[in-house]
Structure formats: C-alpha cells, structure tokens
C-alpha cells in the first residue's frame, strides 16, 4: 500500500512537471486551464487547512484579493520587482489575517463562516470606490515577472504574453511548495494540536493549548498561501478588477475541497483539477453549471461523504485486478 502510494505520487509528479508541459508546449489553452486549476488547488488546500482546526471559511477570496492588490501596488507604485512582491504579498496577507483574526476568530462555526463571507464582499465593494487602488476599473498594465540572469546563465527566463510555459512552472512550483508545507503541518505536533482543537476545543484548552492563538495562526498560514496566489494571478493576468474576486469564487474553493475530499491532502487538488476540467469539457451546457454543481454536491454528500478522494482505498485492489491480466507492470503491482 505504501509503495503503491509512492508510485502514484511519482507518476503524478512526472505527469505534472514533465509530460504535460512537453506535450502541450504550444497549446496555450490547455496550459491556461492547468494554471487556473493549480491556483485554485492552492486556495482549496488552504480551505482544508482551516477545516483541520474545525472552521469553515468562505473568505479565502479576500486574502487572494489582498495579495493581488498588495503585489500589484508594490510593483506599480513602488517599482518593487515581482520576485520580491510575490513573497511580500504572502507576508502582507498573513499580517492582514493576523490583524482581523483577533476580532473575527472570537466567533466559531457558522458565525465565523458568515463573517468571512461578509469580509470578502466588503473588501470587494471597498476596492470599487477607492481610487488609490484603481476603483471599479481595477489595475491594469501590471508588469510580468522579470527574467533573472546570473552572468550568461539564465536562472529565470522571460515571461511573455504568448508563452505560458514559465507561468505553468511557476504555479507548479507554488503548488508543490504548498503541498510540502501542508504535509509537514499534517504530520507535525502542530497538526496534531490543530486536530485536537477541531475535535474538542474545551478539552484542548484544559490541557494548556491556547485555542484562540492557534486559530489565528492557522488563519494566517492559510492567508499567506492565498496571498501568493493573488500575487501570481495579478502578474499573470496583468489586469484585474475588484469584481475579479467574487464571493462565488470563495464558495467554489470550499465546494472543490469538499467534492475532492476535505479529509485528505490530495482531496482539494483532485476536486479542483477534476471540476475545472469537467467545466471545460461541458462548455456547450455551461449555463447549467450551478445546477450540475448542486447535483454533484448532493450526490457526494449522500453516497461519498469522504469526497472523491475516499475512493483511493480501492485503487490498489483495482490495480491488482488489472495487474492479474497484464505483464510486467501487473507483476510489479502485485509485489507491492
């Protein structure tokens, strides 16, 4: 089982960083869909991180937005290069979460979820009337990430409008970074503390855990990664408006995380990639999207409460069945 999992991870990684970019080198449409799916995966992963402490958040778009605006304003008003603005956007979003976390995280459960929804909407409306940040027309002509050369060696190539491959690799790097950090959290005593808070916060406090501080911490960590996504989005699209960040986005992050399986690290990623590709295949019937979405959610809740990823436990036996039939690969899988 463990070997099987490792094999699956290696296969997916090779697909993601080698096969797809090589196969679709010149297909900007396909690369663009993968880039969007990766962005959304990161945010859906932060939804899961919040859920580990027992909180549902519908406000992640607020941090994406904060990151996008911070990064864009730093670049246009202060001339900060993208490679500095990117981590700055993450840090500023985390600080923003820290500041609003103190009052906001006095609430729990549904009340907290509703408040996050309101914050996201308020920020969107505020940005529309604030001229310093571009008002309703938003910010445009944002600089693309700069190339970095060390001597004659090109560390980072040129980012252009016609070639999406550098963007693909950048967001792939950010997604892998997010996965590595979140997996580390899951397996560390910190992750255990978060789960303890989710399962019984009164007991957690009684054994000395500062529940509120940990909630704020997890809120900030999730905001950091949302901020990175926002910064990437700003310099990838090079133009955005307050209405680029709607509450509907926040809701889809939660739903993708849920559909994929919020109990698993792979769940939000599966949900995001799966659903986004599904929408692409169903372009002709796109007006029915909300209906299909609702139906899918109901089906998953009824028949697969662990999300799509909970099917993973059947994979080895399925693979073994296939293995019985075919040659060397089957033999290898059987051995595992």
């Amino acid at each position, binding site marked *: 089982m463990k070997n099987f999992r490792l094999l699956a991870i290696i296969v997916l990684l090779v697909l993601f960083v080698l096969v797809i970019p090589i196969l679709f080198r010149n297909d900007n449409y396909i690369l663009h869909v993968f880039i969007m799916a990766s962005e959304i995966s990161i945010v859906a992963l932060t939804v899961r991180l919040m859920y580990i402490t027992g909180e549902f958040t519908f406000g992640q778009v607020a941090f994406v937005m904060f990151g996008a605006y911070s990064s864009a304003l730093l670049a246009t008003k202060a001339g900060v290069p993208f490679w500095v603005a990117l981590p700055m956007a993450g840090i500023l979003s985390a600080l923003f979460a820290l500041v609003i976390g103190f009052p906001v995280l006095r609430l729990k459960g549904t009340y907290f979820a509703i408040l996050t929804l309101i914050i996201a909407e308020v920020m969107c409306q505020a940005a529309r009337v604030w001229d310093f940040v571009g008002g309703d027309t938003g910010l445009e002509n944002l600089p693309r990430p700069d190339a970095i050369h060390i001597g004659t060696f090109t560390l980072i190539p040129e980012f252009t409008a016609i070639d999406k491959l550098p963007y693909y690799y950048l967001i792939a790097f950010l997604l892998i970074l997010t996965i590595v950090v979140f997996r580390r959290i899951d397996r560390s*005593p*910190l992750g255990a503390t978060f*789960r303890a808070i989710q*399962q*019984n916060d*009164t007991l957690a406090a*009684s*054994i000395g855990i500062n529940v509120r501080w940990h909630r704020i911490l997890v809120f900030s960590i999730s905001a950091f990664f949302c901020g990175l996504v926002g910064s990437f989005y700003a310099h990838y699209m090079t133009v955005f408006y307050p209405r680029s960040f709607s509450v509907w986005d926040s809701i889809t992050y939660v739903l993708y995380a849920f559909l994929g399986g919020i109990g698993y690290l792979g769940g939000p990623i599966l949900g995001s990639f799966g659903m986004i590709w599904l929408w692409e295949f169903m372009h002709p019937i796109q007006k029915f999207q909300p209906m299909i979405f609702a139906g899918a959610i109901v089906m998953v809740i009824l028949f697969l409460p662990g999300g799509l990823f909970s099917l993973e436990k059947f994979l080895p036996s399925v693979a073994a069945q296939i293995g019985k039939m075919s040659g060397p690969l089957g033999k290898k899988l059987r051995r595992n």
Partner: protein
Amino acid sequence: MTILEVKDLTKRFGGLVAVNEVDFVVEKGMILGIIGPNGAGKTTLYNLVTGVFRPTKGKVIFKGENVTHLSTHRRAAKGLVRTFQTTSLFHEMTVLQNVLVAHYLFRNSKGLGQLIATPSFHKEDAKVKKRAVEILDYLGLSAVKNELAKSLPHGHQRALGIALALATEPTLLLLDEPVTGMNEVETATMMSLIKRLRDDMGITIVVVEHNMRAVMGLSEYIIALNFGTKIAEGAPDTVVKNRDVIEAYLGVEQGA
C-alpha cells in the same frame, strides 16, 4: 503549604446564584472531596476554578498567585488541570495520539517551530514519545494504545481522560465525577489509581463525586455544597453526620 485558595467565590447567571460566596483551601498533598446533590453548583465551581467562567465576585489563588482572570490554558500551564464529567477525549485519535497531543505544555517548541525538524526537536519528540508510553503503562492502557479513543470501553475512556491530564504535569488535579457510571470493579480500580497519583507523584487532588462510598473512601477532607452554598466541611465521618448534609440529600420531613 496551601496550593489553592478559593475566597468568597460567587457566580450568578441572571437571577440564579449557581455558586454563592464559597471559601475553601486545598493543602499540598491532600485529597479533597466535594459533595452535594444534583445542581448544588459543583461543576460551576470547577468551571470557575479552571477559568471556563469568570466569577461574579471572589478570588481564586493558586500557589500564592491570583489567577482569577487568567484563561484556562494559562492556568493549565501553571499546573492547575481538570478532567471532565462526561468522557471528554479527542475521539477520532488513537489512545497514543491523545496522550502525545496532551504533551503540548511539555514541549518547548511551539507553533511554526514544530515544522522545522532540528536535532533538538527530534530529541524532544523522542522524549515526549517515551513519556507518553510511560503514562499509558502506568494507567494500564498500553494494550489499547492503537485503538481509537471513541471505541474504548467506559473505564478505559475515564483512565485516558486522566492520562491526558497527567501529560500536562499538573500540581493540582481536579477530577469531575471520576467513577460515575462505573461498575464496582472499575470503581475500585479508579479509586486505587487516584490514591496512587497522590502517593507516587505527589499530585494534590480535588474530587467531585456522587458515589458516596467512593468519595468517603478517598477524601481526607470534605466540603458539602447545596444550592451553591457551602453547608458543611470537615473530616468525612463528621460531614456525613451533619444535619444540613443529611437534609440536603434526603430532604426535610414535613412538620419535623
């Protein structure tokens, strides 16, 4: 030496006085019993002492320090720890994971520092694991350490509740109905365990309990509450003979 001093402690919920001007003192190394009929204010008193509620009036002094306005986790860090009346555990974790997570205070590394695996972190982690196993051994839970907490029998769940408290290295342990719902064998085991906690580890113990035989057998000193007010205190055999206590439990005969 006085470990805990409760002075004039009062809690009102609207018009209801749940705890009314209660005073008592816990000396180091003693086992103190708190008795009283249902609704006497015992659990509210615990919630005031551990900081779940803030008192309307009065003070809680722990090891000479006024802790009345500290939060629960700050009091736990000072060694004032409780267990819960209902089986309160991290139900979706295994027994071992429960005790490991309860070593939160024992660890020096906190927050994001726990994400970077430095040599000192590994050393600390090994120490925590060793200690967790020792605690489980001590409480006779080693055989079930990989079971989910929710799947344990009642007696083991109560023992695990105590294991969590022990992991925090308490100096004063407040037990809330530790033998309620237990059969006679489980009760006897739990009673001898509570005595051992005091004798082996020097932990001072306060116990709220309905089971009279258990609380009389354990405690060296008893406080009786009724309607939030302290009605009697003293050695167990004098408290049970107290007229007010008998009335509180059995009621007053009409016209007597």
